[in-house]
């Protein structure tokens, strides 16, 4: 009986150690809840705001930045407006687009129409892209969201923005089908910039009004140094511009995934006012 109890105690201690380590030895990250679609009022949206929506989708729901980043998993898209024109003339191009806008839409829903050399699926000799169709699967961007991403891609690569803002995003889906009930409950947007800064712990790295860390640039007078576009870009794509004396890849990406458009604008306005 003594041996039996020893073995039981030993086994329970072993399980207890593993459970204890998993609870207290590693950080407990609360995974993000399942994604929910937002209802956006496109009717009153300017093109700049529409582009901002595209940027948010690009790094958020679209999960584009999982691969289109500087780690080399997929081509960078910073010059896509320029290279798209060349790809349309490339003999390897298998699509039907005739201009940049069509090419970009096609590359989102039929990624294998043109595969950049070296980025094809293993064993397909660059004939097949590993990228999923963003209108299906777990990404499921609707037509208006795809248009917004294309607007962002055109804008961020310096090309002319040719797309038009659709009017039906988030209201009704194609064919009159109602939007998923389960996907239609956005959280309440925050309008207080200080709450947003606390929520995203910006001051852990940035000095704001004399309080905060020194890992990132001091933002106490950032409004006097940078314009709104620069600030917006820096939040959504931290590596787009690196301030002198600082290293890339320090600021977490994915802010666009977590911020509402209105929250982004609140933050930009707040920072722009720091002079």
């Amino acid at each position, binding site marked *: 009986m003594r041996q039996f109890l020893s073995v039981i105690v030993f086994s329970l201690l072993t399980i207890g150690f593993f459970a204890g380590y*998993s609870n207290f030895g590693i950080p407990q990250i609360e995974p993000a809840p399942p994604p929910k679609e937002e209802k956006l009022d496109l009717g009153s949206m300017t093109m700049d705001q529409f582009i901002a929506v595209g940027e948010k989708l690009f790094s958020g729901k679209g999960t584009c930045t999982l691969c289109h980043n500087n780690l080399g998993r997929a081509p960078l898209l910073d010059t896509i407006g320029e290279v798209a024109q060349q790809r349309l003339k490339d003999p390897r191009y298998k699509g039907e687009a005739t201009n940049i806008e069509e090419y970009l839409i096609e590359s989102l829903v039929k990624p294998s129409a043109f595969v950049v050399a070296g980025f094809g699926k293993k064993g397909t000799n660059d004939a097949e892209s590993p990228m999923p169709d963003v209108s299906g699967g777990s990404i499921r961007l609707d037509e208006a969201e795809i248009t917004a991403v294309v607007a962002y891609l055109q804008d961020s690569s310096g090309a002319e923005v040719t797309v038009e803002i659709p009017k039906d995003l988030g209201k009704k889906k194609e064919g009159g089908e109602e939007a998923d009930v389960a996907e239609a409950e956005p959280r309440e947007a925050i309008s207080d910039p200080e709450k947003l800064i606390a929520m995203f712990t910006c001051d852990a790295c940035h000095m704001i009004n004399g309080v905060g860390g020194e890992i990132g640039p001091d933002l106490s007078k950032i409004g006097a140094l940078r314009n709104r576009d620069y600030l917006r870009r820096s939040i959504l794509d931290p590596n787009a511009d690196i301030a002198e004396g600082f290293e890339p890849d320090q600021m977490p990406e994915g802010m666009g995934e977590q911020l509402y458009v209105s929250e982004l604008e609140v933050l930009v306005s707040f920072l722009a006012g720091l002079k």
Partner: protein
Amino acid sequence: MNGPRSRKTGRTVKTGLLLVTFGFVVALVAFALSGFDQLGAIAAEQEVAADAAAASPYGPAPKLTAADYPSIAGINSRVAVWIFAQLHLWFAAFVLAVPIFVFIIEAIGMRTRDKRYDDMAYEFIKVSITAYSLTAVLGGALLFSLILFYPHLFTYLSTIFKESMIYYALLFFAESAALYIYYYGWHWLQGGFKKWVHLTLGLVLNAVGTTLMLLANSWLTFMMSPAGVDAAGVFSGDAWAAIHNFLWNPINIHRFVANIAYGGSIVGAYAAFKFLTATTKQERAHYDWMGYNANFIAICALLPLPFAGYYLAAEIYAYSQQMGITLMGGIFAWLFIIQAVLIGTLFLSANYYLWCGMGRSDGAKRYTKYIKYIAIVLVGAFLVWFTPHTLVLTNEELKALGGPYHKYLGPLGIMPAKNTAVNVMIIFTALSFMFYRRANKIATVSWVNAGNAIQVALYTAGIANILFLGIYHGYFTNTVYKVAASIPQVLTTLIVIVGSITLDSFIYRGGKQVGPLHWGRIPGRAQYALFLLAVSFTWLMGLMGYIRSGIRQHWHVVDIMRDASPDAFTPTLGYAANVVSVAAIIFMAMVIFVFWIAQVSGNKTLPAGYWKE
């Protein structure tokens, strides 16, 4: 029972077990290779399926709301299904694995005509027979809980897999029949032709058991990488396409190998307990021998297991980059740090048992001086594997560290460093095993010094190559090529292991024994290494079950059928660890019951004066 084993028998057993296990693995890999790189073929299948769906009588996958999930007596649906599924899987893994090595051990007994193998095989199968009933009971509980808590998911899956579910039920009857005849006919089907009939029954038992596993695997891999359905989930009617989905074979291989390692570890725990409670020297010797063989089986399967796991992860990545990134670089990344602790524990306990076991031989002291170095390397490799890449820190810690990566330890967090560490760990475990094999032997061939020099060169070159590949690809190439070292590293490890075992068998051919092996001469604490192995394995399987299922995130069937239940969120690792721990404790209690029943069945009471004369 405690008599000296002949050298020939010992060598035959080890080589036989190794070769047959290896053969099984190779056969399964070969089977999988037939569909290994058939991404194109599967894509084509899916296209055909999509065409067929247009005229399909099947409907799309249902779009659910929270109201579609019954709430019953306040029970947490997900936890209930989770625990039943995990308990069923643990028992199923055990009862599928035991007949595999029972079959091998019985065959070795027939070949060597050493009855001890036959007796040991019988004792193994006796332990699994009660576990078999519990597997069925828990399978039923899982089925009922799925029907009750997730009726729409079950309906959708059963629409697609209805034929295979019927075959599964029929095969289960066949499995039961084969197992009961195999077990209860053991002493009846002895000698000559009858023994061959019995062995054939063992083969049938394994074939049916493995087919059952393959069918069940297809259902769960369909949920991860659906095939045979269109984007809306409309079934094309092609059941084979749904079964032969992208992740089916990778899971099949991983589970097959892991089951053997797991079965070995559970039987090892049984032998360890019997050893500790043995009252005679003969009993101690018998259960020491049984524990050694069980541990040997576990190690044989443990060595290729990281490779099977890596292959599975690579295939998940190949199927979906998003899923692959979520798995290794997203919210689940920290789980692999826990996994490192678990696997480090497995390797260290298996090695520790081998080192303690060297005490059975009087010739072992020639090698004991090397053990501390092996231990240092194993711990070092474990620490590299254990090192996280990105640290989640408080603001103060972040400031103190100067960024999310540690200046010196950060580089050890990347995958090439971990691949290097695990390969080194495997090679040094093989070295431990080689020392154990050599402990009681003296080589008599004239070229022994040259042979030893080649062994040293083989290990040195292998380790150097693994380090070079890891360092070069990990730190001097860009991200895309960082994992390119993994395949040549694995090949190097396999070459070193197979090469050194082969060479050693030639060096010690016709060699002398130092003396008789003293079975039973092993400290009691070594038995706790076997318990540690079994408990760690159980817990690790639970943890990896969580991630396998968890990477589907908020999908019942990835991209096809969304989970709209209140439990659609991914739980934290701590929460998952708690569920796994509770399930592991329930499992342990059930296993103790199984062991107790196995023991009670052999007890006899002769009540004086109770029965009429």
